[in-house]
């Protein structure tokens, strides 16, 4: 049985994908912030797929020490229950913030959660993914277009704008997927960014307020159900041989920004390593 790890798996796109992938016969490991919501999500999936194999782990992925802790717990679980292999990582947890807010490390929260937390989790999961010649699916967005990384101020300490900070974090998602392909593609790893489209989720209403909440409340009414993007995640997990493109929407490859190039991907990768205090190369040596 192949194992899939999904972050942000208690609601929205993460939950819908977990449900669909569980039905497709994968073992699901979910990460959520709230223990009660994890339990509710698990029961809800089991009611649809009674024979599903599901485990939830609780962590606030905004904080790096929480990502490190939960990664160690999941690694033990993978070793004990899953033959030391992880077939896919769905890095989906994300947030929107109306204001500049920081994590414990002083990192801007959208950048920290939407990009760095997934980067750090993938670092911990790398040996398990490589052993399975696995896949990494990152929830990106069409909003990554018409945006450049602010290399001199990635945390938006100057002129914070919620939408620009979000767009940059989504551009980071594509750059990270590209960097993973560039670095580990030859070892059989495939990384993708998924554009879920406009989806009816609560992402714009959690801890936001003001204009962001107002606009999102209005926009999400036009969104599709999270079950729609879930199909794309299921497709990218199931397709054999593994699809070769970087960016997908509705199970089809899409064009992406010219900013998503080798140079930017490598630069972001090194910056992220520094901000997380890890080295991917050393991760493989530790194994």
């Amino acid at each position, binding site marked *: 049985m192949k194992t899939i790890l999904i972050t942000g798996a208690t609601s929205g796109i993460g939950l819908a994908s977990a449900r669909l992938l569980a039905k497709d016969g994968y073992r699901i490991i979910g990460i959520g912030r709230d223990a009660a919501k994890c339990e509710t999500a698990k029961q809800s999936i089991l009611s649809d797929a009674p024979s599903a194999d599901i485990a939830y782990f609780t962590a606030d992925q905004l904080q790096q020490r929480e990502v490190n802790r939960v990664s160690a717990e999941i690694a033990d679980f993978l070793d004990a229950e899953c033959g030391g292999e992880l077939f896919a990582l769905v890095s989906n947890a994300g947030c929107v913030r109306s204001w500049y807010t*920081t994590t*414990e490390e*002083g990192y801007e929260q959208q950048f920290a959660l939407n990009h760095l937390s997934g980067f750090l989790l993938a670092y911990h999961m790398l040996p398990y993914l490589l052993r399975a010649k696995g896949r990494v699916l990152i929830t990106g967005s069409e909003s990554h277009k018409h945006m450049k990384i602010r290399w001199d101020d990635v945390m*938006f300490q100057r002129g914070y704008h919620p939408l620009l900070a979000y767009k940059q974090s989504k551009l980071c998602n594509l750059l990270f997927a590209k960097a993973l392909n560039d670095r580990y593609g030859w070892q059989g790893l495939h990384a993708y960014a998924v554009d879920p489209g406009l989806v009816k989720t609560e992402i714009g209403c959690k801890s936001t307020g*003001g204009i962001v909440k107002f606009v999102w409340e209005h926009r999400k009414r036009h969104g599709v159900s999270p079950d729609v993007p879930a199909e794309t995640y299921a497709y990218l997990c199931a397709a054999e041989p593994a699809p070769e493109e970087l960016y997908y929407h509705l199970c089809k490859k899409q064009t992406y920004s010219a900013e998503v190039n080798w140079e930017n991907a490598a630069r972001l990768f090194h910056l992220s390593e520094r901000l997380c205090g890890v080295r991917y190369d050393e991760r493989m040596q530790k194994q």
Partner: protein
Amino acid sequence: MNVLITGACGGLGRALAMECGKRNWRLFLTDINENGLHSIQRGLERSFGACVAAKTCDLTDEHSVDELLAAVDAQGICFDMLLNVAGLDCEGAFLTRKSSDLVRIVSLNNEATLRITHAILKRRKADKAFSLVFISSLASMYPMPLKATYAASKRFLLDLALALRLELKGQNVRVLAVCPGGMPTTPEALRGIEAQGFWGSATTNPLETVARRTIDGVLRGKSVYIPGGLNRALAFVGGLLPRRWVAAAIYNRWSRAQKHWLKNDAPADTFAA
């Protein structure tokens, strides 16, 4: 530039620390929260390669402060800037709060701030410029029913800053009082801003701007910094009206906002402000 920041793990403390880090200053951070202190220290080192020292301290405990100062002296650090950020808020009507919680507001916001400020000023190099910042609050501008102790404690800091500024002018010490409105520092603070609806959002100050202008302001010798045009206007109008009237108007607004807040969500008892 050597900077000491108290309350460095709170929302504003972190934003100020990142602002100083961005300017490549050397930082000494203190907070009561040990985990948080390590995290922000790591964050600064990784982001800017900053030179950061950190030590936990309960500023309300004299013994703990002595240990902090001993560590400062042992490393022979002379500070050029002190950012007094550590502070407590405690929402709610006076009699619904434990007296120990209320006294703690004054212990930290005032007593502890006096103690550390005095000690650090005594240790400064006499011939060098020194910058001293007190994080007061927009609440310092008026008497605030339902935040009575907090507002009074912040008024103390505002008056202290204005008075010290004149006392120390000849000694090359610049003193700034910062009087922000609500800031999006914690999930509780965000809920508080939301509960106040339009006025909550309108008087909310972006952290990164407050942090940058605080540092710029004190370096330029500014005396009082009230972030946000609307907040400045409110403070100005509040200053023209009799204080009794202002208090009555605030009571009106807060009691409505708090009812709404209590209905939707139990407020957290305390959060750094």
